[in-house]
């Protein structure tokens, strides 16, 4: 009798690695959606990291069995991880070197309130302190 299941060849070796790799990449994106839904604005470094780990698992999967689908999945995941790293690294801001300095008066300026009335440095002086929050826009 030679029917031991322990010695039977596996039909899809590396399938677990394939599933884990894809799952990691998808989980990273889902986690980011959840993060934004929770109004948490930290930098999501975990997104490209999880996709990169997914690439590692897919390479392990390919190591065990080479199929066209796994090669395609690996290529897609490499593109995804690359795009995620590129986005996070490309959107870095240079250090501030402008004229605003702690301990100095805020520079003179003139701009406009939402109701069309003027707003200048003189409007900063009075009873209240002020926090300026510069933001990119409504989009």
């Amino acid at each position, binding site marked *: 009798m030679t029917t031991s299941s322990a010695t039977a060849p596996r039909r899809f070796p590396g399938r677990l690695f394939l599933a884990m790799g894809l799952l990691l990449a998808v989980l990273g994106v889902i986690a980011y959606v959840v993060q934004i839904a929770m*109004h948490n604005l930290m930098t999501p470094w975990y997104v490209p990291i999880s996709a990169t780990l997914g690439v590692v698992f897919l390479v392990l999967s390919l190591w065990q069995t080479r199929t066209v689908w796994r090669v395609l999945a690996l290529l897609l995941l490499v593109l995804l991880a690359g795009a995620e790293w590129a986005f996070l690294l490309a959107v870095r801001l240079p250090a501030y070197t*402008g004229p*605003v*300095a702690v301990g100095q008066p805020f520079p003179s300026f003139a701009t*406009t309130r939402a109701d069309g009335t003027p707003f200048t440095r003189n409007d900063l002086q009075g009873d*209240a302190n*002020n926090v300026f*929050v510069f933001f*990119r*826009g409504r989009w």
Partner: protein
Amino acid sequence: MIELGQLERHHEDFARRNTRVIVVSVEGLDDAKKTQTDFPHLIVLADQEHGLSDAAGLIHPHSAPDGSDTDAPTTILVDRHGMVRWLYRSSEVIARLSPDQVLQAIDLHIPARP
């Protein structure tokens, strides 16, 4: 806009510290009016001519999706005498301070009046 919503929800905390929250972008009056309607407790400035953004050196060139300029996300604390007490800018465009972090900065850098 998530950031502005968070600040709006904490408006009472800022009022307790006698601090106005002034939000600035280089968008025009129409957009600023919508923002003001959405966040009535914030002071919204329409800095379309860059009068404030240039004075503060905060223009991030060609960074909008359409290639136009935007303000680099930055938070500046100015006391009631017009003196700058604190400036924060993340190295990452997509990172923002939480309202609690801004409130902590106020407590740290502007002593309460007796």
